[in-house]
């Protein structure tokens, strides 16, 4: 591999160089290199255990790594750029007995509402509502967040992630637990938010058809980045075989008119 110098590049949202992570002597990431330009939707695909979630957690500073380098917006210390990042975790397991309402949950994200306990509902709504219009969670504000359906929860989490107008949105299998029609609208929502706010979106997904129709760039991961490029190029038989092993079949894009 040619040694490529990754200099500070202002138009890169994420730079990862030779990232290595292992758990109990099993290496999960074995030298991952990744450069994500700003203002695109990119997808990370790969089989179970290929390190997609681990890679995302490294970007967020949730996972320590033994070797390598991660820069977000050119900054090595993730803590400094956290306010610019929105994150939607994989299957947020909330304690069912925790009675936090959607309104209260969203208020936790904004500086203006950090003393939410002492604000009236009206005051809170005035501050959080502008961010909710396009997401369609306004009618959920009074509901306890732990009792939402999968699709509703994903919308609330997206609203939460977008409240502080991030420049980078990280989504970890955002549609796990959402049925297929719900899934479609979810990705449409992400795409329209991305277009409007010109943000960078990195999403981990198993759903190849969604990746095909919404991502501008795809990274196939299996311990290392096996291949990268536009979806039609990456998602052919050869590269999928490389990422998923011998059982993969090429993805055929069906046009339904």
């Amino acid at each position: 591999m040619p040694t490529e110098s990754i200099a500070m590049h202002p138009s890169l949202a994420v730079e990862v160089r030779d990232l290595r992570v292992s758990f109990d002597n099993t290496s999960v990431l074995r030298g991952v290199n990744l450069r994500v330009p700003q203002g695109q939707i990119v997808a990370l695909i790969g089989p179970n255990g290929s390190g997609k979630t681990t890679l995302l957690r490294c970007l967020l500073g949730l996972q320590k790594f033994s070797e390598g380098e991660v820069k977000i917006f050119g900054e090595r210390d993730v803590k400094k750029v956290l306010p610019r990042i929105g994150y939607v975790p994989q299957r947020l397991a909330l304690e069912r007995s925790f009675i936090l309402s959607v309104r209260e949950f969203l208020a936790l994200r904004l500086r203006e509402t950090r003393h939410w306990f002492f604000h009236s509902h009206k005051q809170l709504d005035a501050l959080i509502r502008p961010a909710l219009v396009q997401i369609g969670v306004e009618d959920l504000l009074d509901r306890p967040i732990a009792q939402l359906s999968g699709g509703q929860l994903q919308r609330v989490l997206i609203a939460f992630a977008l409240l502080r107008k991030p420049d980078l949105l990280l989504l970890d299998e955002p549609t796990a637990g959402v049925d297929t029609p719900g899934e479609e609208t979810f990705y449409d929502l992400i795409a329209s938010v991305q277009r409007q706010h010109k943000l960078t979106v990195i999403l981990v997904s198993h759903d190849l058809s969604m990746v095909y129709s919404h991502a501008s760039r795809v990274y196939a991961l299996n311990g290392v980045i096996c291949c990268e490029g536009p979806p039609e190029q990456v998602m052919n038989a050869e590269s999928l075989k490389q990422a998923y092993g011998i059982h993969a079949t090429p993805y055929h894009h069906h046009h339904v008119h």
Partner: protein
Amino acid sequence: MFTEPFMQRALLAALFLGPLCAFMGVFVTARRMAFFSDTISHAALTGVALGFWFGLADPTWPMVAVSLLVAFGIMWLRENTDLLTDTIMALLLSASVAVGVIILSLLKEFRGELHSYLFGDILYIGPQEVWLAAALFGFVGTLLFLQLTSVTLLTAHEDMAQVCGVPVQRMNYLFVLVLTLVVALTIRLLGIILVTALIVIPPAAARAASRNLRQQIVLSLIFGVVGSVGGTLLSYQLDVPCGPTIVLTSVVLFIATLVIGRLRRT
């Protein structure tokens, strides 16, 4: 009864500790830490025994020290071994009770007083305990309100909290430190066996009657006061032990809110 100094002290302690335990309890119950609280209160038995061993008149500090040791022991084992958290807690609970009982068996003359640590005794609440309760009430209450957003995020989801800039590990240790102090001090009022009731029951009662977290916190504070102060007054009137009366008053509140909640829904 309000003219008797021991009752004044007991009522003041109940007034400070009841709502404080309930406030902490909202997050303790939501984080599934009720058994954790039980473990650190039982660990205090070894502290009591050590206090007697060293001939201290007031074993509060050894109680706090042993409870803290066990609390941080649980956290360390949880982070550094593959053992399940409730296994670790059951292990440390029984171990610390065993150590406490062995030490106490070697000090036969303190048997009578032991009862008051197991089930609480308002006669043992001195001016120092009241001051400590007031200080803890002011300090922890303020801290909780100031850090409410961080504690709530932490309770909802630790990773999300960290991504939102909450120093998760530091907050977890701070939470355990504060919980241990509150539990160790409340033992004087309710006893080692019953102290967890004041942390668990008012939030549980409030939970049944609330639709959001703010309501649950407000109702927990109210139920905490009603349970602890009401229970103390009742125990004087009926001439029965204070700790169990506080627990039963809180249980009655819990059943009432549960029934009312069910009726309102149907």
